[in-house]
C-alpha cells in the first residue's frame, strides 16, 4: 500500500517537472534562475541588503502603472490635462493607478538614495565593485531625468512652469547650455512638440536605458557577489561566532550553515 502511494507520487512529481525539464534542456533557463536565486551570499547579510531589491520593486511598479496610464493619457497640449483629469476622476481605478505612479516615483527616488547610502556606508563600492557603483550613479541620473520628464505630463500650471525653470537651468550650463535647452524643448520656445517629446523620452527612451542599466547592475551583483557588512568578523579573517543564530533554512533550500558549505577565508 505504502509503496503504491509513493509510486503514484513519483509519477505525479515527474509529470509536474516534465515541462520544467523540457525548458531546461532547451534553454538552460531553469538552471540559470536557480543559480541566480540560490547563489551564495555571506552569512551576515542583513535587512540593509534588501534596499536594492526594494528599489527594483519600486521600478517595476512604475513600469506597470506607467504602461497602463499610457493607455488613457493623450500627449497633446489641448488634451493632456483633461485626459489626466479623466483618468483621475472618471475611469474606474484611475485615481489609484495614477496615485501609485505619482507617489511611487518619489518612493523609487528615495529608495535609490537609501540603497546608495547603504552601499557607501558599508564600503561596498570598493574593489572589485567600483564599476557597479558607477553604473548605480548612472541609474540615479537617469532615474532623476525620468522624474523631470514625467513632471511635465499632467500639464497644469505647476508642471508647465517647473519645466520652464528646469529647462532654463539646463540652459545656463557653460557653452552647451543654450543648445541643450533647445534640444530639450525641441525648439526655441516651449511649444506643442515639447510635451510629446517629453512623453516619448519619459516612456520609451529613459525606461529603455534604465532597464539596460539595471540588467548590467544585476549582472555585476551576481558576478561579484554581495559584500559583507563592515562589522563582519568573517570578512575580517576571524572565525565566525561560535554560536551563530539558527540558520533560516528550509524556506527554499537548506541553509548554508546546515549544509556545511560555508567558505572560510582560511580555506
Amino acid at each position: 500500500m505504502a509503496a503504491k502511494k509513493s509510486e503514484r507520487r513519483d509519477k505525479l512529481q515527474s509529470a509536474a517537472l516534465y515541462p520544467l525539464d523540457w525548458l531546461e534542456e532547451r534553454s538552460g533557463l531553469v538552471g540559470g534562475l536557480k543559480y541566480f536565486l540560490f547563489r551564495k551570499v555571506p552569512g551576515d547579510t542583513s535587512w540593509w541588503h534588501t534596499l536594492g531589491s526594494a528599489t527594483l520593486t519600486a521600478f517595476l511598479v512604475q513600469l506597470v502603472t506607467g504602461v497602463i496610464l499610457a493607455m488613457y493619457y493623450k500627449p497633446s497640449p489641448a488634451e493632456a490635462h483633461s485626459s489626466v483629469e479623466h483618468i483621475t476622476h472618471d475611469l474606474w481605478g484611475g485615481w489609484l493607478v495614477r496615485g501609485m505612479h505619482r507617489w511611487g516615483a518619489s518612493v523609487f527616488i528615495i529608495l535609490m538614495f537609501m540603497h546608495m547610502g547603504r552601499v557607501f556606508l558599508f564600503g561596498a563600492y570598493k574593489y572589485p565593485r567600483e564599476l557597479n557603483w558607477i553604473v548605480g550613479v548612472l541609474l540615479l541620473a537617469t532615474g532623476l531625468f525620468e522624474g523631470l520628464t514625467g513632471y511635465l505630463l499632467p500639464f497644469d500650471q505647476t508642471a508647465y512652469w517647473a519645466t520652464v525653470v528646469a529647462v532654463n537651468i539646463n540652459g545656463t550650463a557653460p557653452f552647451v547650455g543654450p543648445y541643450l535647452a533647445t534640444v530639450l524643448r525641441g525648439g526655441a520656445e516651449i511649444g506643442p512638440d515639447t510635451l510629446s517629446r517629453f512623453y516619448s523620452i519619459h516612456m520609451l527612451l529613459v525606461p529603455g536605458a534604465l532597464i539596460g542599466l539595471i540588467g548590467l547592475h544585476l549582472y555585476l551583483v551576481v558576478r561579484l557577489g554581495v559584500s559583507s557588512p563592515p562589522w563582519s568578523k568573517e570578512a575580517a579573517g576571524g572565525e565566525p561566532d561560535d554560536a551563530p543564530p539558527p540558520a533560516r533554512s528550509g524556506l527554499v533550500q537548506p541553509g548554508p550553515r546546515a549544509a556545511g558549505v560555508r567558505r572560510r577565508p582560511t580555506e
Partner: protein
Amino acid sequence: MEERPGDEPPQLPPPSLWPVGFAVGIVCLLVGLVISWPVAAVGAAIALVFGFLWARDVTKGRPEAPEGSALPADEGPPAMPESEPAERFPRNRFLEGATLGLGALIGVIVTLPAAGFALLPGFLKQKQHKVDLGPISGFEENKWKIVTFVRDPTHGEISRRTAFVRNNGLLNGVPSFTILSNRCAHVGCPVQPGGPVFAKEEKTIKSHNGEVLITPMLPAAGYICPCHGGSYDQEGNRIAGPPVRGLDRYEFDIVNGRLVLGDLYSVIKVEGSGKTAKIKAVELHGPGQHADGPESWLYPLQPPH
C-alpha cells in the same frame, strides 16, 4: 591548501590623500563657477595639482615582483611558448572585414537621419513671428498695459505670451513704445507688475493672430518675479534678486497705425527712461545667461531663436 593563480591578493595602489584633494578642487571649481571666478580658478589649480599627483601615484605605484631582481622582459626564457598563429585565409579575412564594415555602414545610415530628425527641427525654422496688437489708439500715452497674445497661430494657445507695453508718445514725429517681455532673466518665470492691475478694464481685440487681451496696470514698484524675488524697475533694469540682467524687450513696428511686435532681444542696461532711454541691446539670451562681463564668455554662440 595550495596556492592557485588568482589567490594572491589584488595589487592595489596604496591608499592616498590625492583623490580627496582632487575632489575638493573640483567642488571648489564648480562652486566658483556659480559664485565667483577667483574661487573657480583656485579650485581648478587645486584639482590640477592633486589630479597630477594622483595620476603619478597610480601609474608608478606598481609593486615590484616579490623575489630577486627581475629580468627584463626581453631576456630569459619566454613565460609561455608563443602559439602558432592560426592559419588565416584571405577569404576569411575578407568576410570578417566585410561584416564589420557593412554593419558599421548600415548603423550609420540608419542612425544619422534618425538622430538628425530628433535634434535638428528644434534649430531650424525658428523664425520669430510678427504679432499685431491692434491700433495705437488702444495705448494711451505714458500708461502701462499688460498685453497677452498668441505668438504663433499654428501653435495655438500654448504660444500665448505676455508683454508690458507703454506708449512713450512721439519721438521726432515717430511713435515710441517700451515693450518688455515678462520672462524673468533668472530662470524664466513670469514677472508681475509691482502695483495694481485693473482687471475690470480688460479689453479684447481681434487681430490676425487671434485674441489680444489688453489690461491697464500701474507698476509703481516696477516688476517683481513671484518665483525667487527678482525685481526690476519700470525700464526693466534689474534692481534686486537673482536675475543676471534686465528684462528682454520686443522690437516693434507701426504698420498702418497698428502696433506690431517683432523679435525679442536682450538688454544689458537701460539709461534714462521712456522715449529718450539709451538701451544697450544684445542678441536674445536665455534666462540665467549673462549677456555681459566675463560670465558671458560661457555663452559664445546662441542657437537660433
